[in-house]
């Protein structure tokens, strides 16, 4: 949870934060990805739909670059983070466990 804790540190320190050494367990990775997705959507709304915080976008980049790939739920959350930054509306259809992106 070190990565989640870093969200509490001052903004200027986040500029130098790198995800390169962050190698969580699949369970922790899923939790962090879900939390960061919610945070990204909140921050995006607060910034008047302009940008998702760079730190969160870099998390998505780090996670999507991992080999072997992270769990499917992490990939879905990372893609949702990118979709949020691109201004897409994400509809979650709970019944089928699928997410649809409206462009």
């Amino acid at each position: 949870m070190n990565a989640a804790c870093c969200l509490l540190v001052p903004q200027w320190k986040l500029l130098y934060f790198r995800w390169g050494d962050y190698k969580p367990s699949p369970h922790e990775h899923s939790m962090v990805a879900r939390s960061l997705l919610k945070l990204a959507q909140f921050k995006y709304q607060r910034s008047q739909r302009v940008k998702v915080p760079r730190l969160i976008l870099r998390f998505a980049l780090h996670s999507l670059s991992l080999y072997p790939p992270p769990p499917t739920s992490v990939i879905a959350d990372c893609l949702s983070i990118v979709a949020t930054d691109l201004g897409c509306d994400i509809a979650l259809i709970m019944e089928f466990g699928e997410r649809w992106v409206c462009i």
Partner: protein
Amino acid sequence: MAEAEDLDELHSKRKAVATLLPYAVWLERAGEPKMLDALLHAARASRMPGFHVVSYRAICRYTLLRGKPSCYSACIAQLFLAYLREGLVQRWAAAVSVAPHTEEIAQSVVDALLWVASNHILLPYTTINTWSWLTTRPSLPPFSMGRYIGTHPNVVRAVRSLEDTKVLKAYLLLLWSEWIPLWDKSSLDEMCASMREDFGGIGIGHHRADLIQRLDHSLRQLDWGLESSSSTIRPSRTGIFRI
């Protein structure tokens, strides 16, 4: 798909688009190339300066070093020119050797090749097979990086050293244009020497004729440009012409 009118928006969202690249490459390796196709199309349309952000060096390594070389690896190198190093160029050259000859891939390969050739450290890693892509003579955009840096005297010398008339001719035909000036006078001197020494023999008159035709065409275009701009020249009160 990215079109000209989307360029500002694409530029503002370049980091988000770049974030998708590793996943798109992973999908392509799994046999689903649609996302990578769309991203490369967007990157080409916007010229993606965002790829030159330090944190995206990892994407370059990821996309070129992982998995089997494919035609996509051949195209991706064009997006990360600033990060190409010896190992990546070797990998890129391997990808180019298996890529099919299409106009779009040829544009990417030639653009990256001319950049690589201008760097004396990377130049030894190019192969004759890579250079042969010049003979496909893709239509580079008027202000492409490759077309500009390709006139560097090092590149002219490198192409001459191949001693392959067809490649040399294709290179000169590609570089001589009304769009981009030559790098400097030493480039011009090298090209003049090439015309004298490499195209002065017997049996290559048709190559010479093609080169002269291309030069005539470029000069006509330049003349036409000068005439158009001279119509906007107005005499000032002091009698000195001001554009």
